[in-house]
């Protein structure tokens, strides 16, 4: 195709990007869902860092 190393570099970057996006889509798609469940459970717990009197104006 060409002997220009820049061409091969960009071809590799594009192929890598498409592959990486596809991988991340499924990996983060699954794990991110579990992260959301854990986060919502953690922030639902009653004892929190802020003292109760701060809630009143």
């Amino acid at each position, binding site marked *: 195709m060409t002997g220009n190393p820049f061409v091969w570099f960009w071809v590799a*970057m594009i192929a890598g*990007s*498409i592959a*990486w996006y596809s991988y991340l889509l499924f990996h*983060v798609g699954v794990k991110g869902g579990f992260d959301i469940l854990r986060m919502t459970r*953690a922030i639902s717990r009653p004892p929190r860092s802020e003292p109760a009197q701060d809630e009143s104006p």
Partner: protein
Amino acid sequence: MTLTPIDWAIIAVYLVGCTVAGIWMRRYVRNVDDFAIAAREMDVSLGVASLAATEVGIVTVMYTAEMGFTNGLAGATTGVLTAAAMLIVGLTGFVIVPMRNAGVMTIPELFEKRFGKHVRWLAGLVVILGGVLNMGVFLRAGGDFLMNVTGMDSTKSFTLDILGQQIQLGYLELIMTGLLGIVLIYTVLGGMLSVLITDYLQFLVMGLGIVITSVLVLRAVNGFEMVSELQEAHRVGVPIQEALEKQTKAQATRDAAEAQRIRQTEGPEAAKRFAEARAREQTDSLLARAPELAKHKVLVGTSPKKPNADPEPPKILAMAEPFNPTRSKGMGWAWVIWQAIMAFAVVTTWQTTIARVLAARDSQTAKRVYCRTWFYFVGRWCLPGLWGAAAFVYFANHGGLPEGLGSQTAMPRFLGIVLSSSVTGFLGLMIAAMLAAEMSTDSGYLLTWATVIYNDLISPCLRRPLSERAKLFTVRAVVLAIGLFLVFWGLWYKPPGSIWEYLSVTGNIYLASLFALLVGALYWPKANSRGAVAAIVLGAAGPITFLIVNFIVGPDSKYRIPGEWSGLAAFGLAFAGMFFGSLLGGKPSKSQQSQLAPERHTP
């Protein structure tokens, strides 16, 4: 390029799903910590999704594609440099580890610990000035994309009669105001918690849309054949472009001399008529030659015709060196070095990126988010850059650019053509993906700048701390105020110049100052408040001065300062300010040094 019912259904499901999920998170918000930094409960995968979604907006796609259209794949160099900077920072923890360990909510808050309240306030002001102005072009760029990808006229409007007043409303402005309205609803109600959930959904939709679109684009330009097409376009097109520009310049000089003669003999009105007639003739002659020029890989770009406004002169567009950034037009070694420094500044100081570091459970989580997101930044530039370069090849092979299209708007029109001729629903998915990109960026930015305004500009001025309820109300009101500002500044007012020029100038005001300040605060024990103020003032003054100089000398002047030199000088001035200011300012107190002392040993 008409949207089918399936396309509309995909867009509607996405919009409704996102809005409902965002509003749902409101129930978990109890204080400003929940609202601004999600109670620091964000984990790695959610952080990756949020960071990736926030950092890809339609504006990103538009300017990276524009770089691809003018400079081929070399235009994506910034993405590779940013990815490299992200990986290095993720592996070493440079800046992000001490910042997360400091337990602050914003970057300026960190400066108070080291340099005092006045530096925090001043830094907050610079952050807001650079950040909010930077965001100013997001909506219009987004609107331009959506209009062009669907083939709608971006200047189309209708007139409303309200209480006897005729008000003209553009479709572009209305659509984008509506979109911002949805973003505002869930961001105001749920803050960072809503932003994280919607970012997650948007990441999925956007990722799917980007992957499918890239594959279809490669198919449309026959994959590897595009490489030789780009090389050919550069080899054939550039000499013709240069000859045409030379010809146009010589003709303009002759016309100016003739106009001067007419002014002296027949008066200024006749001279003006002559100049206008000549400009029209030149435009018509160039447009008539456009199909012929396209055969020689030169495109003629035009702006959409606006009612009651003079048409802008057409632009002669050729493909610059498409692979080697050191030899590509408008780039070069100085440009690459500037972009490399800017990449480090962006990944360590850009508040919307750092907001994910500060929301992370701990510094190790923050490092992991960076290590897992780094390659995403290559794709963030390479894939839209590929779309832009492919758009050039496509239009060069299909008789030139349609009227009203230029380097910014060619890519969305090209995508519209490619996707509407593929499987039904792909165009809808692409539009949903870009809506996702826009919404996640807008929500992340709105929340970030509102947090800085509350935390670093309003809060230090208060004599007594506000109650949690009042704090929440204030931050929500600030989010809303920024939203309103954006509607008027970014949508109804159009800033002059290209998107990238606008973004780099407004971004540089912030990046140079804050980068020097952060490095000084975290890694140099002798840094003091005088050095900090000098870094802020010089870092911001640099780009503004260069902007003024370039405005005065004009676009074609030989005295015009190139962007790379102004950018490098801004960083140089900011670091010089920090260094010399601190040396002149005396020693910082022991207590100020010790505030961040433990983190200084954790690179």
